[in-house]
C-alpha cells in the first residue's frame, strides 16, 4: 500500500477530487495548510505599510491506495493540478505499513 500526500493550489481541489473519483479512488482527507517553496509569498499593503507574507495558503490531499493504483493517482493529480506556473505544489509517496477500518476491524487493501 502507498500513502500519497499532494500539496496543490486551493482552486484545483474540486477538479482533482473529480478526476480521482473517476479512476476509482474511494476516499481522501483534505486540509487547508500554509507553506512556501519556490513561490516565496505575497505582499500585502495597508495604507502604504507593506508586509510580505512568506506563507501561502495551499490544500493538502492525503490518499491511501493499493500499490497498483498508486502510480495512476500520482499521474492524475500531476496532470489535473498543473497550471505550469510556480506554486502548483508537490506530490509525495510513502510506503504504508498497514490500514484498519475502525468499524469492522478489516485490515490491509480491503480496509481502503
Amino acid at each position: 500500500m502507498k500513502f500519497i500526500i499532494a500539496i496543490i493550489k486551493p482552486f484545483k481541489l474540486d477538479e482533482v477530487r473529480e478526476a480521482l473519483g473517476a479512476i476509482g479512488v474511494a476516499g481522501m482527507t483534505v486540509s487547508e495548510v500554509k507553506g512556501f517553496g519556490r513561490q516565496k509569498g505575497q505582499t500585502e499593503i495597508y495604507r502604504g505599510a507593506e508586509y510580505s507574507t512568506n506563507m501561502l495558503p495551499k490544500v493538502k490531499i492525503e490518499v491511501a491506495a493499493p500499490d497498483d493504483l498508486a502510480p495512476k493517482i500520482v499521474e492524475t493529480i500531476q496532470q489535473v493540478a498543473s497550471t505550469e506556473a510556480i506554486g502548483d505544489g508537490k506530490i509525495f509517496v510513502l510506503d504504508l505499513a498497514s490500514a484498519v477500518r475502525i468499524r469492522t476491524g478489516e485490515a490491509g487493501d480491503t480496509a481502503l
Partner: protein
Amino acid sequence: MMNRKLICGTGALTASLFAAMPAWAQEAAAAAPVPNPGNNAWMMTSTLLVLMMILPGLALFYGGLTRSKNMLSTMTQIGGVTALAMLMWVIVGYGLAFGPEGNQFISWGKFFLAGVTPDSTAATFTDEVISEYVFIAFQMTFSAITVALVLGSVVERMKFSAVMAFTVVWLLIVYYPIAHMVWEARGVFFVMGALDFAGGTVVHINAGVSALVAALILGKRKGYPAEPMPPHSLTLTFVGTGLLWVGWFGFNAGSALEANGSAALAMINTFVATASAALFWMLAEKFSGHKGSALGYCSGIIAGLVAVTPAAGNSGPFGAIVLGAVASIVCFIFVSKVKPALGYDDSLDAFGIHGVGGIVGAIGTGIVYAPSLGGPGGADFDMGGQLVTQVSAVAATIALSVVGTAIAIYIAKAITGLRVSPEVESDGLDIGEHGERAYN
C-alpha cells in the same frame, strides 16, 4: 453650527402666574418661542445618528484596524470615554462651552444644567428655536466623538485608566474652550467669521492634532514598524465605515439645527464629497503602482467626510466633490508616504486623516464658499480675507490642541503610568486590561 443666543424658557415661573393674571399670561405665551416639532424631531434623530457614529461605528472602524488581541480594548476605550464625556457634558461641559456668562474664550453658568426645563429653548440660525435639552444632547454627542477620535493614535498600548484620566483633563482644557470659541456667539473665532459648518476645527483638526501629540509622547507600539501589524478585520472596518457615513448625516445636516434648506445642502454635500473621496483614494493607490484596496476605499470615505464637515452647508455640491477629491489625495500621500518617512506611530492615522483632512477642509471651505464656484457666499464674498480668517482659526486651534494635549497626557501619566507593561502589550490589552478575549 455657529451658535446663537440661548433663550431660557420660563415655564415654571409663568405657569404659576397664569392663574392670577390671565391677560398678561396670554401675552407672554404668545411671545415665548415654541419649537417646531419637525425641527425638534430632526435634531433628536441627528443626535442619535451621531451616537451611532461612535457606537458602534467608530468602535468597529478602529477595532477592525487593530490586531485581534486588542479588539475589545479598542472598543471599550471608545465606549468608556463616550460615556464619561456624556456625564462631564451635563455636569460642566455645557456650561463651559455654552453657559450664559462668559467672554470670547470660555463661558460659565448652567452647571449641572441648572435652570434648564422642558420648556427651555435654544435659538437656531433663523427665528426658529429647538428644545434646549435637544441642543444639549446634540452637542454632547459631538464632545464624545471628538475625544473618541483621539484614541485612534494611542490604541494597543495606552492603559484604560490613562485614557479615562486623559479624557477628563482634555475635555476641560481643550475641547470646551475650543467649542466655545468656534460655536458660541461671543467666541473669538465665531466673531472673526471663521466658516465651520459642522466642526472641522473643533472636532477634526482638534482631535487629529491632539492624537499626534498624544502618540508622540506615548511612544511607538513595541515592534513598530519592523513587526507586521496588519488590520485583523477589514470586514468590521468596512461595516464601521458604513455606519460612520450614515451617522455623519446627523453630524453635518444636523448642524443646520433645523430640517431646512441648509440641512438639505449639507446632506447632498455629505453624499457627493464622500463618494468622490472614496474613489480618488483608490485612484491614488492605482497611480502609485498598487491595487485599489478596501481599506483605501474606507480611508477615502473618512477623509471625504472629514473634509466636507466644515464645508457641508458652505459649499455647492460640485465644490464639495473637488474638496473631497483633494482631501483624499492629500491624506493618501500623508499616511502612505509622509508618515512612514517621519517614523512616528499614529497607529490608526487619526492625525493623518482627521488632522490633515480637517486642515484641507477648513482652508478649502474658504474657497468653495465663493458664489463663483457654486457656493452660498454673497456677491461681495472676499476669498482672500476669508482664507486669512480660516488659516488663523486653524493655526489657533492647532496651538491650543498641542499645548492642552501635552498637559493632559502628562497629568494622565502622573496619575496612571500611561502605558501598559511590555508583557501586557505583548499578550494584548484585551486579556491584560479587561480579562477577556474578543474571539473564542
